[in-house]
């Protein structure tokens, strides 16, 4: 019975790889947007960035072309038994860096792109419109809270506050203001349904990340629009007028990569129907979907071993 398990895994992987795991579709748009929008894992530029791969792990970029789109940590794991290493903890970190650089690209060398997860939720630093040029530049501590209470704008604070978040949120005229408990303004951002609504112009000072080509393919985005990611949503924007035309997708924006542990919040199997046959959890692998990608992880360690693009 026990012999069946590895056979199972091998079969699933072997059958799955050539079908659902596809290289970049090559839709001819070029990689410029991807280059700007990706997380810091571009192997083309990252070879000599000081992280180094001279520990003898033997996974140099010259072997990339032979690798499938899905690249598995197993190829690197073998090096962990190298007797020459004296500090296993350092080596493990080294392995992770190496894996990240190598895995985040497709067969043709184009990167697998993720949006960065902004812990600060894309807050704009500085004084918000309407609150600028007051006394100390922005509102002084305490004053903002008084104003907010008077205006009732903090009534729905609870809509935006998450677990362990001690800050306070106040919504006013399309923007969400983050304050500390003393009422000092920490930053602000335009929000979905507020300043980031169809029919509104994109806020000029608000930074965004262009949608990568993969998302254009995965979500079937209209080629005549610009697509921008900000604060957990993908927005269609008219490139001429800068007007927001649609909210195309919601994304967690979580920055998941090979070698990392699955973060909290991925306990439940959530693979899209069409891929459940190929990517069923088993003794050696678990699969979770997030933002257009499937993540294969080790059920015991929860470490992500493979990132899979889903294109049909």
């Amino acid at each position, binding site marked *: 019975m026990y012999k069946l398990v590895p056979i199972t895994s091998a079969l699933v992987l072997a*059958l799955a790889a050539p079908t659902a795991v596809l290289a970049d579709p090559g839709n001819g748009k070029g990689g410029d947007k991807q280059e700007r929008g990706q997380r810091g894992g571009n192997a083309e530029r990252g070879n000599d960035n000081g992280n180094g791969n001279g520990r003898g792990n033997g996974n140099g970029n010259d072997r990339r072309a032979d690798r499938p789109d899905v690249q598995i940590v197993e190829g690197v794991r073998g090096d962990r038994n190298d007797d020459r290493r004296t500090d296993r903890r350092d080596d493990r970190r080294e392995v992770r860096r190496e894996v990240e650089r190598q895995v985040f690209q497709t067969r043709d060398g184009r990167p697998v792109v993720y949006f960065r997860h902004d812990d600060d939720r894309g807050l704009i630093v500085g004084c918000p419109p309407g609150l600028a040029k007051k006394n100390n530049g922005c509102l002084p501590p305490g004053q903002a809270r008084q104003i907010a209470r008077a205006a009732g704008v903090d009534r729905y604070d*609870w809509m935006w506050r998450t677990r362990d978040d001690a800050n306070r949120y106040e919504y006013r005229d399309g923007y969400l203001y983050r304050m500390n408990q003393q009422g000092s303004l920490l930053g602000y951002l335009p929000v979905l*349904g507020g300043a980031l609504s169809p029919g509104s112009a994109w806020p000029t000072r608000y930074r965004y990340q262009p949608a990568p080509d993969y998302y254009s393919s995965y979500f079937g985005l209209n080629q005549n629009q610009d697509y921008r990611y900000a604060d*957990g949503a993908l927005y269609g924007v008219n490139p001429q007028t800068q007007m927001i035309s649609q909210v*195309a997708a919601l994304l967690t924006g979580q920055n998941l990569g090979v070698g990392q542990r699955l973060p909290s919040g991925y306990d439940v199997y959530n693979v899209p129907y069409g891929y459940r*046959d190929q990517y069923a959890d088993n003794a050696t692998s678990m699969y979770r979907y997030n933002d257009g990608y499937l993540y294969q992880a080790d059920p015991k360690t929860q470490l992500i071993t493979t990132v899979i693009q889903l294109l049909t």
Partner: protein
Amino acid sequence: MKTMMRWALAPLCVVTLVACGDGAGGGAGNGAGKAGGPTAVTPSSQTLAQTLKGDRTFGTLERVLDNAALGEVLAGKGPYTVFAPSDAAFTASAGDLGDEAMKAQGAAMLRAHIVPGSLTRADIRAAIDQSSSGTAEMRTMANSLLTFSKDGDTLIVTGDNGARGRLTGEETLASNGVVQPVDALLVKAAG
């Protein structure tokens, strides 16, 4: 041993292209925990947006969705799982989230009820059963966590700030995700 047998069957499912998931009425579970008999996954041809619009139970939710301009999202590729509050779940303390002036609040509320991927109740039960804590967590599009647990046969879902609801009625497998009816809002009004 039973579980090992199920893993052993997994490649057979792949080879024969027989769906190993659940039926439309639920019962999927993940690969390791599913029931043995292969049942074709036959989601509805309707999108999440169409499913919600066609169910009178979700009239208020539909209004909030339209107001927040998120209808296209639920008509798009997804997949998402929407924990859909019934009309009765929208209490007075939440305010009128379908009002024009409440678009942002409505959008924030909706994001806290949507998680990535397709979650059937069998999947949720399997995750709870496999957990030593008896709970399972999923991250929402609001970057918050929903925690699932069981109370007898009932699945309980608890939001970040303690809001608690029950999965009620029947789940619907839409073409681009799952609608899971819930009897309460999963964000709790302060005070």
